[in-house]
């Protein structure tokens, strides 16, 4: 059975991708957040533009900060957003 994950986007990532989130099926061999980002970039369209430079992005797996090397494992939600600017 294929694994899937909910992606959620915020701020300019959301605006530029044009969606608040989406559920995607993870292809076999997907281990890290980097693998997920690469899958998205390979889709083409606006994805490469928005997601290629991961230094400008921050990630959270099930609402905890994660890095591109973090293992997705059985997480159900991956959030992709720019550095935070609250306060």
């Amino acid at each position, binding site marked *: 059975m294929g694994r899937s994950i909910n992606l*959620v986007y*915020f*701020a*300019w990532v959301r605006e530029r991708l044009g969606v608040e989130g989406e559920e995607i099926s993870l292809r076999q061999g997907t281990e890290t957040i980097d693998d997920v980002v690469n899958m998205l970039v390979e889709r083409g369209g606006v994805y490469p533009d928005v997601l290629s430079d991961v230094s400008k992005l921050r990630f*959270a797996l099930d*609402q*905890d*900060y994660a890095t591109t090397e973090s293992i997705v494992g059985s997480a159900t*939600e991956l*959030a992709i*957003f*720019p*550095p*935070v*600017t*609250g*306060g």
Partner: protein
Amino acid sequence: MIRIEVSACDFDIGAETAKVAEQGGGAIASFVGQVRDDGNLDTLELEHYPAMTDKALRAIAEAAQADWPLHAITIFHRVGKLSVGDNIVLVVTGSDHREAAIESCSFIMDRLKTVAPFWKKETGSDGSTKWIEERDSDVKASEKWQK
């Protein structure tokens, strides 16, 4: 006692300070951040990640509680559309000691700026919009608390 609130509504500084003071201690520090007029700002929009925000703010408060002897911590952050002069964020800490209250308040603000999932988008008086970028000074301020 930790109180976290994320709301489109405004906060009442006097009331929030009184709630912290009720928990005892006698030393209450607070910080209020407001929308600053940079001469060209119409509105500021605060977006956040609802599922994560409370958790992230609570983790900051718990880290403060672990490092300083505090009776109470309140973190109130607004979201949605704000105008110049509007309140954005309130942090109140209560302790027996003024150093603990003031330092932990400073710590919470510094951490909040770099880890709480909020994003600010400015709309200028000419209608142009811009997402605020992370500031190096905020990153440095947050890093200085790392042990």
